[in-house]
C-alpha cells in the first residue's frame, strides 16, 4: 500500500483541511468540531436543511456534494465509519432554518445508531428531524427485505432528488415523501475488480485472484454475493442489469436515470464501455434514458470496479434530477 499521506491517523483531518481550503467559497468547518462541514451559501429561511453523511473514503460523497441544489451540511466520520452524534447535531443546528432537517445516509448499523442518537438530541432542542435511509444495493438483502438493504452508489441520486426538492421549496414532509419515493425506485448492482487499502490498517479490503471479479461487493469492501472469473464488459453489464431488472422490472415507455459509478481506480474508458452496453440493453427493452451520470460519485477509496444504478423516474423525479446543482465536486447546469 503506497499512499500520498502523512500520518495514517491524520488522514481525515488533513483531507478536511485541504478540502475546505480548496473550496472555501462553498464550505466551512464549524468551530466546535472540525468534522462538521456546512455550506457557506445554501441555508436560507424556510428551506429544509439537507444533511447527508457517513464515513470518509467515499469522496466525492459526501462532502463534495455540499452546495446549491444538493446538501447543506455533512458530518464526517472516520474512514468507513459513521460520524458520532456530536458533529451530526452540530451540523443539524447550523443548517436548520426553521423548516426542519432531513438526514440521508446509507442504511448501515453504525449510521443508523449515530444519526438516530443525533436526531433524538436535535428533537430535544426543538429541531424537527426526519430520516430517509438509502437502500439501493440489490445484492445486500433479498427482495422481500428491501428495508434491510444497504446504500451504495444510489445514495448520490437520492441526495440529488432531496437537494433539488429542498431547493425548490418543498416542505419537510414533502421532501421526505419524494426522497422516499426516489429511494424506492433506485437499484444498484456493483462489480469489484480489486480491493481498496484502508490507510489505517494498510491491508487490502479483500482478496481477489488476478483473473477474478466479485459481484455485489459493498462500498466498504464487504464481501459480495458471487465471485467468479472476469468476463467481457458486455457480459458483466448484462449480469448487473439482469439482477437490477429482476428486482425492479422496467417496461417499454418507462424512463430511467442511469448512473455508472466508479469505485476508485477503474478508468473512465471502462465506465463508458459499461455504459454503452447498459444503454443498448435499455434501448432493447424500450426504456427511455432520461439522464445519465458516468464517473466517480461514491467511491470506495481506490477499489477497482464500478456499479450500475437505475432510478425509475416519473415526471416529478425527472424534474428534480434536472434541477441545477453547484457543489465543489458536482456541478450541473
Amino acid at each position, binding site marked *: 500500500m503506497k499512499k500520498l499521506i502523512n500520518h495514517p491517523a491524520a488522514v481525515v483531518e488533513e483531507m478536511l483541511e485541504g478540502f475546505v481550503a480548496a473550496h472555501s467559497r462553498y464550505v466551512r468547518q464549524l468551530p466546535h468540531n472540525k468534522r462538521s462541514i456546512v455550506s457557506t451559501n445554501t441555508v436560507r429561511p424556510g428551506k429544509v436543511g439537507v444533511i447527508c453523511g457517513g464515513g470518509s473514503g467515499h469522496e466525492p460523497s459526501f462532502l463534495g456534494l455540499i452546495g446549491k441544489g444538493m446538501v447543506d451540511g455533512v458530518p464526517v*466520520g472516520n474512514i468507513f465509519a459513521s460520524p*458520532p452524534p*456530536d458533529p451530526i447535531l452540530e451540523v443539524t443546528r447550523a443548517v436548520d432554518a426553521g423548516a426542519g432537517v432531513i438526514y440521508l445516509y446509507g442504511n448501515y448499523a*453504525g449510521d443508523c*445508531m449515530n444519526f438516530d*442518537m443525533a436526531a433524538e438530541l436535535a428533537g430535544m432542542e426543538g429541531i424537527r428531524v426526519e430520516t430517509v435511509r438509502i437502500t439501493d444495493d440489490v445484492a445486500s438483502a433479498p427482495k422481500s427485505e428491501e428495508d434491510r438493504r444497504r446504500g451504495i452508489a444510489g445514495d448520490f441520486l437520492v441526495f440529488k432528488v432531496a437537494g433539488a426538492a429542498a431547493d425548490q421549496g418543498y416542505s419537510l414532509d414533502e421532501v421526505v415523501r419524494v426522497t422516499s419515493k426516489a429511494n424506492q425506485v433506485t437499484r444498484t448492482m456493483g462489480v469489484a475488480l480489486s480491493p481498496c487499502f484502508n490507510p489505517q490498517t494498510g491491508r487490502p479490503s479483500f482478496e481477489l485472484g488476478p483473473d477474478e471479479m466479485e459481484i455485489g461487493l459493498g462500498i466498504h469492501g464487504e*464481501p459480495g454475493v458471487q465471485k467468479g472469473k472476469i468476463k467481457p464488459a458486455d457480459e458483466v453489464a448484462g449480469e448487473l442489469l439482469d439482477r437490477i431488472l429482476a428486482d425492479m422490472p422496467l417496461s417499454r415507455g418507462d424512463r430511467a436515470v442511469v448512473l455508472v459509478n466508479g469505485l476508485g481506480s477503474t478508468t473512465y474508458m471502462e465506465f463508458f464501455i459499461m455504459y454503452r452496453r447498459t444503454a443498448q440493453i435499455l434501448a432493447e427493452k424500450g426504456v427511455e434514458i432520461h439522464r445519465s451520470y458516468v464517473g466517480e460519485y461514491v467511491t470506495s477509496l481506490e477499489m477497482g470496479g464500478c456499479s450500475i444504478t437505475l432510478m425509475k423516474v416519473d415526471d416529478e423525479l425527472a424534474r428534480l434530477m434536472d434541477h441545477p446543482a453547484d457543489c465543489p465536486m458536482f456541478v450541473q447546469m
Partner: protein
Amino acid sequence: MKLTSADFIQALRKIADRIEQEKDYLSELDRAVGDGDHGVTMSIGWQAVKAKLEEFDGNSTCGEICKAVGMTFLNAVGSSVGPLYATAFIRGSAVLQGKTELNEDDIVQFWIAAVNGILERGKAQPGEKTMVDAWHPAMAALKASREAGKDLAASLEDAVKAAEQGMKSTAEMLSQKGRSSRLGERSLGHQDPGATSAYMILDSFTHTIKSLQSLAS
C-alpha cells in the same frame, strides 16, 4: 473485595492496552466479514478513553469516570461500536453515580446495566452474529454464578468462559446485523469481530479484578 476509583481507572487502562495489542487481529477478523476496520475503530476509541482518563484520579466518582468514557469513546469513533459502547458506559454510569468505591454487587450491576444498554441500542438478538453473542451469555453466567453464591472474581471467570464460548459460536452463525449481514452463507466459518473484542474487554477486566483480589488476600 472493593474497587476504588483509582482501581477502576486502572481496569479501564488495561482494557485499552489489551485492545491495542489485539487491534490487527480484530481488523483481520473484520476483513473477512465486514470492512476490515474493527481493530482500528476499537483502538481509536480506547486510546481516546485512555487519554481522557488522565483527567481523573482517585477523587473522581466511578459514575463520572464512566460517563466520560462513554462520551469520549462515542465522539472518537462513531461507527457501529461507538453508540453501542457509549450507551453501555452511560447506562453503567447510572449505577455508579456518586461512588468512589465499588463493592462486588455494584460491579455486577454495572455490567448488567451496560450490557442492557448494548441490547437496547443495537436491538440485536442472540444468534445474529454480533457482540451480543458474547455479552448476552456472559451476563447470564455472571448472574447465575452470583446467585449460586460465588464471589465476584469467580463469577466473572464464569462470565468470561461464557463470553469466549459465545464468541466462538459466532463462527457458525449466519450474520443478521451490521455490515456482515449481506454475506448470508458466506459469513459462515468466520468469527464475529465485535464478539471477539467483547470477550477481550471482559477478560481484561476480570484479570484486573483477580489480581486486585490476590493483592488484597
